[in-house]
C-alpha cells in the first residue's frame, strides 16, 4: 500500500514537477561526472607516471659485484623473480686515450672502457645511440671522438696503468644518453655521486675487452645490468616500494656479494613526488567543482523548498504520518540521485572518450572505480541537499501554513555567522595561513630521496578553503547590506526598465536579500572557480614552456663539446639560416670554487635576452634586467647560486676567486670576480649550482673566448626545420637540439603527463557550473514566483514592466556575481599559484591571465541569464494570468 503511494507520488512529481526534478538531477549529475572524470584522470595519470618512469631508464638495475664470484651473482639474478634479462658489463679504468690524425697527435685524460656482451645493445637499446660508423667493434663516445679528432676507421691508443698501451681501430661513434646512471657510483648516496660522467669513454666488445685488460684485472669492475618485467603498481609510490624492496632483497640474498644501483627505483622515487602533486591538483582543482555542484543542487532544491513544504503540509493535514511523508521524500530523493548518477556516469564516460588522452579513455577499470565513488558522492549530495531540509521541516510539531511562495524577510538581517564577523575572521585566518605557507621553508610535497614515505602538507588546503568561505561570507554581507540600504538606488536602476513597477520591484528585491545573496554568491564562487582554474592552467602552461626554454636554452641550440673550437664565423652562418631571427654565442666552461667544480656560463648581458626569455624569478635580488645591467656595468660581476652563497657566506660585493680550467685541459687560470647577485635558473644550466659571468671579462681574464654554445631564436616557429638546417651546417661536431623535442622530455613526469585533458574538463565544467549558477537558479526562482507575476499582471503591470523586473533581477545577479567572482577569483588564483608553487618548474614570476577564457565565461553567463530572463519574461505573459492563478 505504502509502496503504491510512493509510486503514485513519484509519478505525480514526474508529471507535474519534471523541471524541478530534472534540475536537481542535473546538479547531481554534474558532481558525479566531475568526480568520475577527475578521479579517472588521477588514477590514469599516476599509472602513466609509473610507465614513463619505467620507460625512462635504460637499465632497471646495475648490480655491481663486490668481492664475490660474478657467476654466482649472475645465477642469483637469473633466479630473481621479475628479472627479464641480465647482461654483464665490464668497467675498465684507462689512464687516457691518444690518437694521431691529420698530422697531429691528440691525447685525453683518464677515461673508462666498457666491455659489452654481444646482446647488450639489443637488450638495452636506450643505453647506446649510434651516431656514426658501424655498431660492431670499438665505439668511441662523441665527446671523446671530438677530443681525439678521430672518425670511424681511425686508430686510438688505450693507455693503461701498469700495462702496455693497446691500439684499437674505431668502428663507430656513439652517444650515451644515460651516462649519468651508466657511470654511477653504485651504492653511493646522491650527494656522493660523480659530478659528471667521464669525459672519455670507449666501448669494446667483451672478448676484446678481456684481452685488453687481461694483464690488469684490478682495473676492472663487473656489473650486471638487469631489465625487469615484474608488474608494478599504478601509483609510483607503491611501485617504488615494490621495486626498492626487490632490490634490497637481492642485496640481502647475495650476502654482500652484490650491490644494486636501482635506476628504476630512482626514477619511481622522482615520479612519486609528482604523483603526490597530481593528487593535490586533483583535490585543489576538483573539490571546489564538486562542492559547487552540491551547492548548485542545494540552491535548486531550495528554490522549490516552499512548494515542497506546502505539499508536505497538505499531506500532513490530510492525515499522512510524518514517517510516511519522509518516506515519500526519500523516494523522490532516490529518484533524482539514481537518475543524476546515471546521467553523470554516462556523461563522464563520454567525456573520457573525448577530453582525455586515449590511454586514459581506455582505462575502464579506473572509470568504473571512480564511477562507484562518484555515485556515492551523488547520493550524499542528493540526500544532503534534499533530506536535511525535509527532516528539519518534519521535526516541527506544527503543520506549516500553506503558502504559494517563499516567505520574505521584513528587514533582511545578517545571519548570525555574519553578525559575529565570521567572514572577517575566516579571511584573516586565510591571510595568516597563506603567509605561513608561502614562506621559503614551506614545501607542499616532501618526498625525501630514497625514503618510502611521502609527506603531503594538507594544511595547504586551509588557505584557499578559508579564502573561499570568507569571501563567500563577505560577499553575502555586502549584497545583503546593499539590498537593505540601497533601495533608492535599486529603484533608480530599475526605473528605466520596469517603469511604474520600479518602486515595488526595489522593495521586493530588497526583501529577497537572502535569496539574491545566495544566487550572487553561488555565481561568484562558480566564476571564481572558473577564473582560478583557468589562471592556474594558463600559468602552468606558461611555466612548462619556460621550462622547455630553460632546458634547451632557446628555440634551437647548437652545443660544441668542451675544448672544441667552433669554426670562425659560425654565428654569421647560423644567422643566415632561413627562419633564424637572432643568434647569441655563449661560453660554457667550468670553474672551481674551493674544491667544488661548477658550470660557468659566460654571456653577453646586453644581447642574451634577444634569444631567450629570462624571467625575473630566475634571479634573486633584482629583476632580470637589473641583474644583467649589473653584469654589463661592472664586467667582473658574477652571479652565483643560492647554495653557493650560503655555503661560502657571500655578501654582495664580495670578491670571489675562481679557478677556471682551460677547456683544452692545459692548466687553469685564477680569475677574480665580484659577487653581484643570485641566479636560480639559467638557460641550458643544470638544476644545481652554477655561475653566470660576463663573457668578455672571462675571455679577457683567461685569454680564451671560445663560445661553444649558440642560442638561435626562430620567433617561436619553424624550430624543427631550423634545427635540421643547423645540423647540416655544423655536421657531427656539435649537438643540435630544438625546443619541440625538448618539450616532451623536460620536467617532471607530472608535466610530461600534461594537464591538457584535465584543463579541458575543468574549464568545461567551470563554464557549465557558472552558467547553471547564473541561469538555473534565477530561472527556477522566477518560476516559483509565477503567482506574483500573474497578480501584478492582473493589477495592471504590462509585459515591458514585468520583463524589466525580471531583467533587473537578472542583471543584479550577473553584475554582483561577475564582480564578486572577479575579486574572489583573483585572490584565489594568486593563492593557488603560490601554494602550488612546487608544481611549477620554474616557479612563475607572474601569473598568466587567460583573458579570452575569462571573457568568454562571463559572456556565456550573461547570455544564459539573458536567455533565462527573456524566456521567463515571455512566460509571465504567455498565458493568461487567470490561468496561472488557477493552477498555482
Amino acid at each position: 500500500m505504502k509502496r503504491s503511494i510512493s509510486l503514485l507520488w513519484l509519478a505525480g512529481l514526474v508529471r507535474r514537477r519534471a523541471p524541478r526534478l530534472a534540475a536537481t538531477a542535473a546538479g547531481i549529475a554534474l558532481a558525479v561526472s566531475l568526480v568520475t572524470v577527475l578521479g579517472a584522470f588521477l588514477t590514469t595519470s599516476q599509472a602513466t607516471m609509473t610507465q614513463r618512469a619505467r620507460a625512462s631508464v635504460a637499465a632497471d638495475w646495475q648490480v655491481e659485484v663486490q668481492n664475490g664470484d660474478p657467476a654466482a651473482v649472475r645465477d642469483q639474478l637469473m633466479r630473481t623473480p621479475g628479472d627479464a634479462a641480465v647482461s654483464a658489463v665490464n668497467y675498465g679504468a684507462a689512464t687516457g686515450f691518444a690518437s694521431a690524425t691529420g698530422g697531429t697527435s691528440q691525447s685525453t685524460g683518464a677515461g673508462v672502457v666498457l666491455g659489452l656482451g654481444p646482446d647488450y645493445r639489443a637488450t638495452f637499446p636506450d643505453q647506446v645511440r649510434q651516431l656514426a660508423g658501424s655498431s660492431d667493434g670499438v665505439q668511441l663516445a662523441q665527446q671523446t671522438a671530438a677530443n681525439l679528432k678521430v672518425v670511424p676507421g681511425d686508430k686510438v691508443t688505450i693507455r693503461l696503468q701498469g700495462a702496455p698501451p693497446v691500439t684499437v681501430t674505431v668502428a663507430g661513434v656513439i652517444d650515451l644518453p644515460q651516462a649519468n646512471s651508466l657511470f654511477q657510483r653504485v651504492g653511493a648516496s646522491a650527494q656522493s655521486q660523480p659530478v659528471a660522467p667521464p669525459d672519455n669513454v670507449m666501448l669494446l666488445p667483451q672478448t676484446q675487452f678481456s684481452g685488453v685488460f687481461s694483464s690488469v684485472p684490478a682495473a676492472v669492475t663487473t656489473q650486471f645490468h638487469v631489465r625487469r618485467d615484474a608488474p608494478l603498481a599504478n601509483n609510483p609510490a607503491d611501485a617504488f616500494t615494490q621495486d626498492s624492496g626487490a632490490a634490497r632483497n637481492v642485496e640481502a640474498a647475495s650476502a654482500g656479494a652484490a650491490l644494486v644501483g636501482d635506476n628504476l627505483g630512482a626514477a619511481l622515487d622522482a615520479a612519486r613526488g609528482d604523483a603526490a602533486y597530481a593528487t593535490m591538483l586533483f583535490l585543489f582543482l576538483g573539490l571546489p567543482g564538486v562542492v559547487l555542484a552540491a551547492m548548485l543542487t542545494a540552491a535548486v532544491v531550495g528554490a522549490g523548498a516552499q512548494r515542497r513544504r506546502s505539499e508536505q503540509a497538505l499531506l500532513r493535514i490530510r492525515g499522512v504520518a510524518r514517517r510516511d511523508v519522509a518516506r515519500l521524500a526519500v523516494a523522490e530523493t532516490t529518484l533524482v540521485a539514481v537518475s543524476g548518477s546515471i546521467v553523470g556516469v554516462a556523461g563522464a564516460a563520454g567525456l573520457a572518450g573525448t577530453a582525455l588522452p586515449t590511454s586514459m579513455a581506455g582505462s575502464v577499470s579506473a572509470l568504473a572505480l571512480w564511477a562507484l565513488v562518484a555515485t556515492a558522492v551523488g547520493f550524499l549530495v542528493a540526500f544532503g541537499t534534499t533530506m536535511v531540509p525535509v527532516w528539519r521541516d518534519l521535526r516541527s510539531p506544527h503543520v506549516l501554513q500553506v503558502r504559494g511562495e517563499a516567505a520574505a524577510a521584513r528587514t533582511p538581517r545578517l545571519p548570525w555567522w555574519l553578525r559575529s564577523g565570521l567572514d572577517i575572521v575566516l579571511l584573516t585566518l586565510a591571510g595568516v595561513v597563506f603567509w605561513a605557507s608561502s614562506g621559503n621553508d614551506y614545501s607542499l610535497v616532501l618526498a625525501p630521496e630514497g625514503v618510502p614515505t611521502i609527506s603531503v602538507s594538507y594544511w595547504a588546503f586551509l588557505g584557499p578553503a578559508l579564502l573561499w568561505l570568507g569571501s563567500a561570507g563577505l560577499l553575502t554581507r555586502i549584497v545583503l547590506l546593499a539590498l537593505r540600504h540601497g533601495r533608492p538606488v535599486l529603484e533608480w536602476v530599475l526605473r528605466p526598465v520596469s517603469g511604474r513597477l520600479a518602486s515595488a520591484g526595489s522593495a521586493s528585491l530588497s526583501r529577497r536579500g537572502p535569496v539574491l545573496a545566495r544566487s550572487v554568491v553561488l555565481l561568484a564562487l562558480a566564476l571564481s572557480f572558473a577564473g582560478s582554474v583557468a589562471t592556474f592552467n594558463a600559468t602552468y602552461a606558461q611555466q612548462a614552456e619556460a621550462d622547455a626554454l630553460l632546458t634547451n636554452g632557446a628555440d634551437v641550440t647548437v652545443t660544441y663539446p668542451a675544448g672544441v673550437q667552433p669554426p670562425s664565423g659560425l654565428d654569421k652562418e647560423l644567422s643566415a639560416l632561413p627562419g633564424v631571427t637572432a643568434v647569441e654565442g655563449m661560453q660554457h666552461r667550468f670553474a672551481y670554487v674551493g674544491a667544488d667544480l661548477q658550470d660557468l656560463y659566460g654571456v653577453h648581458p646586453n644581447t642574451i635576452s634577444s634569444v631567450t626569455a629570462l624571467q625575473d624569478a630566475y634571479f634573486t635580488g633584482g629583476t632580470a634586467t637589473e641583474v644583467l645591467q649589473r653584469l654589463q656595468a661592472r664586467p667582473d660581476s658574477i652571479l652565483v647560486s643560492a647554495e653557493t652563497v650560503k655555503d661560502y657566506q657571500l655578501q654582495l660585493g664580495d670578491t670571489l676567486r675562481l679557478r677556471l680550467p682551460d677547456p683544452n685541459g692545459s692548466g687553469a687560470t685564477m680569475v677574480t670576480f665580484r659577487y653581484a647577485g643570485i641566479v636560480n635558473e639559467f638557460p641550458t644550466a643544470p638544476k644545481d649550482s652554477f655561475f653566470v659571468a660576463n663573457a668578455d671579462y672571462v675571455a679577457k681574464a683567461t685569454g680564451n673566448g671560445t663560445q661553444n654554445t649558440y642560442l638561435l631564436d626562430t620567433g617561436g616557429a619553424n624550430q624543427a626545420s631550423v634545427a635540421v638546417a643547423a645540423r647540416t651546417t655544423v655536421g657531427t661536431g656539435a649537438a643540435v637540439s630544438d625546443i619541440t623535442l625538448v618539450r616532451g622530455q623536460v620536467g617532471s613526469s607530472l608535466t610530461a603527463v600534461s594537464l591538457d585533458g584535465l584543463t579541458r574538463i575543468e574549464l568545461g565544467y567551470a563554464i557549465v557550473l557558472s552558467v547553471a549558477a547564473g541561469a538555473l537558479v534565477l530561472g527556477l526562482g522566477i518560476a516559483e514566483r509565477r503567482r506574483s507575476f500573474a497578480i501584478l499582471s492582473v493589477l495592471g503591470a504590462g509585459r515591458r514592466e514585468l520583463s524589466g523586473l525580471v531583467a533587473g533581477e537578472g542583471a543584479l545577479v550577473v553584475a554582483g556575481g561577475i564582480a564578486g567572482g572577479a575579486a574572489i577569483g583573483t585572490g584565489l588564483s594568486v593563492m593557488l599559484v603560490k601554494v602550488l608553487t612546487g608544481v611549477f618548474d620554474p616557479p612563475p614570476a607572474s601569473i598568466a591571465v587567460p583573458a579570452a577564457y575569462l571573457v568568454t565565461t562571463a559572456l556565456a553567463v550573461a547570455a544564459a541569464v539573458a536567455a533565462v530572463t527573456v524566456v521567463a519574461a515571455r512566460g509571465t505573459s504567455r498565458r493568461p494570468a487567470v490561468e496561472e492563478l488557477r493552477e498555482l
Partner: protein
Amino acid sequence: MALPLTSEVAHSGAGIAAVVRCDQAARTYGHGATAIVAVHGASAELRRGDRVALVGASGSGKSTLLHLFAGLERPTSGTVDWPGLGTGGGRSDASAVAGVSVIFQGPSLIPTLDVLENVLVPLQLSGVPRPASLVRASDALEAVGISDLAARLPDELSGGQAQRVAVARALATRPQVILADEPTGQLDSVTGLHVIEALLAAAERADAALLVTTHDHRVADRLRTRWVMEDGRLNTDHQTGDHR
C-alpha cells in the same frame, strides 16, 4: 478607522447606466470534440450600486464569467463591454479593465511587499503620483480596519486579514466595479462574513458595483441580487430578501 457598515438600499437600477454589460457572451476552452463550454451566451448588466451574488456549484462557470466581466478573458462569442469606464490605456491584455478591481480566492498578495506596498501597487501602475497614492492606500487600509497592519508582510497575516488587504487594494483604486472571486472560500464562516462586510463597505464607499462569486448561501444572503450559474448558463432572475 473603519467606516460603519452601511445598509444596502434597494434600488431598481432604473436610470443608472450600466458599467459592465455582456451580450450573449460565451467562453469555450479548447477546440473540437474536447472543447468545454464554460459560459453559454450570458447576457447581463452591472450598474453602480448593484450588489450581486453569483452562486452556483463548483465548475458551473462562475469564475469564468467574473473573468469576462473583469476583462481578464475574452469571450469566444458575444460581447462584453464597459460603457462609461476608461479604456485602460497602457494596461496589458492580461490586466483587468481600468475601473474594475478583482479580488481572488487564494493568496493574492505579493509576499515580498508589505501590506501598504501591496495596496500601493495598483495605484503606482495606474500612474497615481506617490503622495496621492500614499494617502489613498492609507485611507483604504483604514476603511477596512487594518491600518495597524500596514507594515506587516503577507506571511504575518491571517487569512482574513490578507483578504481584507486585498479588499483595501481593490478599494484604493476607486473602482466602479469590484469583482470578488470566492473571497471567503478559504476562510472560516465568521471571518468570511467579516470580509464580506468589508467588501460591502468598500463598495459603498466607492459607489461601485459589487459582484461576488460564492457557493456559500450565508455570503450570498448578504447581497441584494442573486444570479445563478448552472452548467455555464446564467440566470439573473433571482432576488434575495436577506440583504440589508
